[in-house]
């Protein structure tokens, strides 16, 4: 049996070493750099203690990126879940050309986020304003991405357009796990459609709801490709996400150590939010 045990170690130890070298070691290094003042290319740097962390809490750009990222992540999470649940209900109903529509609604999920962003960038600048002008709205006839108050909504629209695809599929899978006799029983009892949804469908989807909320929120907090393709963080810094700030500051702005500290804080924030979401949503699952 010793031979068997050796084989199991041979299967895992190379993976462990590689994972440590390219995931954990860089993470530890990042934590180490966050206590220095390294700019990313100089030969030497000094240890500065918690200075970076203290500065981050007073940095308007960092604060601004957190505010943008959070309002973006929360709104996309809500919209994606509401819309994809509605679409999943529609696709699960008795409709014509069901497989065709399933194919269409899932389509955005296979497309590159960056290229979808570029396409929408053009639509916002050149196509949607034409409609805005037609209905005579001055507000809608401008390029929303060029307006520092509203550019974030443009990014939300693109993220929702693309993000509903995957969640719809998950909800659809969830709907198919609900036994049909529950509906037959409620029909006999004369329950309304509305009642049926809140008393049967929604509770039965609880675990799918949890997964979808956590996935959408995490995706929202990590937003990067859309920013690059749509606004580059602008106008001003109004749509700069945390990930985008770490990237631009860390690689181009000579703030390697400083943005490493930002990444450490960002990591803690994501872990806390995911854990809270799981705890809160799973508790709801059990209460049912």
């Amino acid at each position, binding site marked *: 049996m010793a031979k068997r045990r050796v084989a199991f170690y041979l*299967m895992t130890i190379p993976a462990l070493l590689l994972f440590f070298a390219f*995931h954990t070691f860089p993470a530890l*290094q*990042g934590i180490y750099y966050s206590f220095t003042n390294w700019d990313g290319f100089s030969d030497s740097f000094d240890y500065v203690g918690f200075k970076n962390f203290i500065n981050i809490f007073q940095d308007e750009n960092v604060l601004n990126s957190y505010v943008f990222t959070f309002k973006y992540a929360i709104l996309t999470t809500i919209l994606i879940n509401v819309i994809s649940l509605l679409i999943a209900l529609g696709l699960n109903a008795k409709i014509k*050309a069901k497989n065709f529509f399933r194919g269409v609604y899932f389509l955005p999920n296979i497309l590159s986020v960056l290229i979808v962003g570029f396409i929408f960038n*053009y639509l916002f600048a050149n196509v949607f304003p034409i409609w805005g002008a037609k209905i005579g709205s001055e507000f809608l006839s401008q390029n929303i991405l060029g307006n520092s108050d509203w550019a974030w909504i443009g990014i939300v629209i693109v993220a929702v357009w693309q993000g509903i695809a995957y969640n719809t599929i998950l909800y659809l899978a969830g709907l198919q796990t609900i036994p049909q006799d529950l509906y037959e029983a409620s029909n006999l009892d004369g329950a309304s459609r509305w009642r049926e949804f809140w008393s049967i469908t929604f509770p039965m989807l609880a675990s799918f709801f949890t997964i979808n909320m956590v996935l959408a929120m995490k995706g929202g907090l990590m937003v990067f490709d859309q920013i690059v393709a749509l606004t580059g963080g602008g106008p001003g810094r109004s749509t700069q996400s945390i990930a985008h700030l770490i990237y631009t500051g860390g690689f181009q702005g000579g703030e390697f150590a400083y943005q490493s500290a930002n990444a450490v804080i*960002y990591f803690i924030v994501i872990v806390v939010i995911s854990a809270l979401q799981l705890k809160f949503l799973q508790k709801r699952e059990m209460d049912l």
Partner: protein
Amino acid sequence: MKKPTNWPVTILIALGSLLILFPLYMTIAIALKNPEEMAQSIFSLPTGLHFENFTNAIKATNFFNALGNSTVITVTTVVFILLTNSMVAYAIARNMKRRFFKVLYFYFISAMFIPFQIIMLPVVKVTTDLHMNNIVGIIILYVVYGLAFNVFVYTGYIRSIPYELEEAATVDGASTFGTFWKIIFPLLAPVSATIGILSCLSTWNDFMLPLVLLGDQDSYTLPLVQYVFQGQFSTDFNLAFASYLLALTPMLIVYLFAQKWIISGLTSGSIK
């Protein structure tokens, strides 16, 4: 009891699907037009087909080179993920009672909470120091990072496979590796399909890792080329859209032929 077609819902779903299809229609239409046609009406169908947009875009972006890079990276990554990540998960799933493997399991899956952006700055430093800022390096990173999610999914599935099958093989003198390849790996086909599809989509469409890692222009992937191209030709929209369409086409073709299989592969994986 056959229910009649629900027409109101069918109509709503059809209208909604127009919102999905409209941007794609615009992409195709703009890619096939020239600036004069665009000036007349942005929305209309193209009158002539301007395939020169495509030939120019192919030349400007060195399209076939990027297509080759994306294909090599994606195919190699998916193959190695299926072969190695499943094996790691097998060793873990069959030894959950031993502390080493249990710790390893939680070590890998806890990494699911760490977005790449957080380790991005030091990873670039490590890979550059090791001269891994190239196609080989990026494949290694994708395969290694895949462990976090894939070990979680594979382990769950392997634990539902009864031991008896393997015991019989061991009695017949098969080695542990032999047992894995001949008995377990074929049984993993349904999960492997799901993981293969997910890894294929995420690798093919990934932009961030190529952006920070690939230094040499010859090794650029399709999304990265679009990014670089965007800055150079920001005024010729027809050319740009031809290029977008070219970059989207390979996956669109795959999706067209394997659509049912892709959707069912993803749903069967999610239910577990």
